[in-house]
């Protein structure tokens, strides 16, 4: 049995962790936008599935990966609109609407897959691109700078999201709509419109998260490809205190645990795989229980806003 703490193994685990974090980053940062504006969207997993299918189907049939990405974004937008109509305009119970959206997305992606593709096929996904100079740094270069373009995008999303939320008027409006919609409304912010935009943005990123699974991480589509990753992404928003940096930390923690248990099996360490797979979920519950970041929770979260009602 190899030395499990050898450099090669640690590099391997961390490289896998960076790669595995991308879908969570896309979905979770997207969801944080929605939640900051006051809407909990639990349908993220369903959106990811339909986005993954769309990206895969288009990439499979056109050979163009970027068209696949576009397809995933469009699909995400459509599902985001559906969620917005139901929870913002029709002011439905957000939690249940999200679950309904999840069931819809799960069913739709399976249906479309079975009818249009039928059997598991692979596609030539995004290839790793080594960044010149940075990619040659020993150890760090391999871990950080030899990934495919979607992984890089996911990580760039973190500072981008921070900048939008902290340094632009839009960010201010989003946070106002979530923190105190009545006050925001009286100041001329169109709360419903802000929520629509945030939810749709979040949904588009969820679609992109799905694409990052099907045409970059595993390069295939199967039923229930995400296996609940979308729900983990929603939990990561709470865990990260609704801030991009916090979410980054949570996503990396989660994906490192995941990568760790995969490598342990390969190296012959005898952990029952079921226990290993359980770890991330236990971790998430513990995180939810002890998270002290609740101070940043938008006060108007999960409450529909009706003009004229106090």
């Amino acid at each position, binding site marked *: 049995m190899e030395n499990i703490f050898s450099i090669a193994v640690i590099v391997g685990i961390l490289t896998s962790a960076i790669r595995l974090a991308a879908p969570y980053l896309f979905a979770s940062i997207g969801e944080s936008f929605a939640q900051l504006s006051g809407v909990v969207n639990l349908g993220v997993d369903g959106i990811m599935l339909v986005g993954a299918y769309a990206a895969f189907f288009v990439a499979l049939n056109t050979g163009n990966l970027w068209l696949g990405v576009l397809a995933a974004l469009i699909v995400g937008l459509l599902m985001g609109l559906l969620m917005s109509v139901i929870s913002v305009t029709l002011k439905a119970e957000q939690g249940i609407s999200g679950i309904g959206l999840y069931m819809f997305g799960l069913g739709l992606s399976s249906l479309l897959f079975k009818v249009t593709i039928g059997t598991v096929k*692979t596609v030539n996904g995004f290839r790793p691109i080594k960044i010149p100079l940075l990619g040659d740094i020993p150890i760090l270069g391999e871990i950080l700078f030899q990934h495919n373009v979607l992984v890089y995008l996911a990580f760039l999303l973190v500072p981008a999201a921070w900048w939008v939320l902290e340094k632009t008027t839009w960010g201010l409006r989003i946070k106002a709509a979530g923190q105190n919609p009545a006050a925001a409304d009286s100041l001329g912010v169109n709360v419903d419109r802000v929520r629509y935009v945030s939810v749709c943005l979040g949904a588009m990123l969820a679609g992109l998260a799905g694409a990052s699974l099907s045409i970059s991480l595993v390069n295939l589509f199967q039923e229930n490809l995400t296996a609940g990753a979308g729900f983990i992404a929603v939990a990561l928003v709470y865990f990260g205190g609704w801030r991009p940096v916090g979410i980054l930390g949570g996503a990396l923690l989660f994906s490192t645990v995941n990568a760790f248990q995969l490598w342990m099996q*390969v190296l012959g360490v005898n952990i029952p795989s079921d226990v290993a797979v359980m770890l991330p979920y236990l971790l998430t519950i513990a995180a939810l229980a002890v998270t002290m970041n609740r101070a940043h929770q938008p006060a108007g979260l999960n409450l529909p806003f009706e003009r004229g009602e106090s």
Partner: protein
Amino acid sequence: MKTRNVLRSSVVLVVALLTAACGGPAAPSGGTTAKFRIAVVMPSATTDMAFSQSMWGALLAIQKEMGGESALELKYSENMFKVPDAAAAIRDYASQGFNIVIGHGSQYGASIQEIAKDFPKTTFAWGTDVNTFGQPNVYAYTAAAEEGGYVNGVLAAKLTKAKLIGVTGPVEAGDAKTYIDGFLQGVAAADPSIKVSKTWTGSFSDVALMTEAAKTHIAAGADALTGSSQSVVGSIGAAKDKGTVLWFGTQQDQASLAPNLVVASQQYDWTGMLKEMIKNNKAGKLGGDKYVLQLKNGGLKIVYNSGYKLPDDVKKAGDAAIEGIKSGSIKVNP
């Protein structure tokens, strides 16, 4: 308050009943036609390039031989990896009067055990297993997958340059387990210094997980991979991605999935067994036997991929292993 709720659901039911009355034809009650009817329930798709396809392919071949649809009616339910769904399908086919109902999956055994009692005139066959539950209308079948595993192991041992081989298994059970046991013995017999690392994903159907496992093996340095179940398409995909990792297949000839990288596959051939079951059923015998596919009886075949240039000495070693197992001089223990 209760009135409204009973009312609303009843309205839908009434609508549904009315539509059903004008709806499609009722299910046929019994098979009184001379056409022979076989139904098969499978855990994965008929196009899975593995377990399910091997059985479906065999059934189609027999149908052609018997003269087509008019002589042999075939129906299948695929992707029944959830046992409760499969049980419902098996029971449904039996109640529709099929002559033979095949539960092609070791997880269906418990269901077959329950259902066969209720339908004494139907032949049930299931595998991979050897338990007929002492019932006269149940056949059990399995494949000595360890035999082909041994041969693949010998081939892989001779071809690996990194001296590290990866195994991606689904669940450590049934023919997945026996295949890998044989594979390990084959590798050890050819070159004991080679390291083989195994991972079990815990699922027959989760292809994404299998892909990740394969990628991890490759990242750890393996240059040859093997595995079984319908999720191996993920492992083969990972091998293709790397471009230099060789694949050894089982259950079905998998050469078409990676024409340059698949060295050989163990092919399950169920046609001999199926023909006997049909013959027996027509003569009045509905079950009670166990079948084992072996290299010796032609149920197992090693199919070399013509698209891969296999060095002569390696092929000789492979053929020698095949002959050894057939003659009994090489014993592979599952």
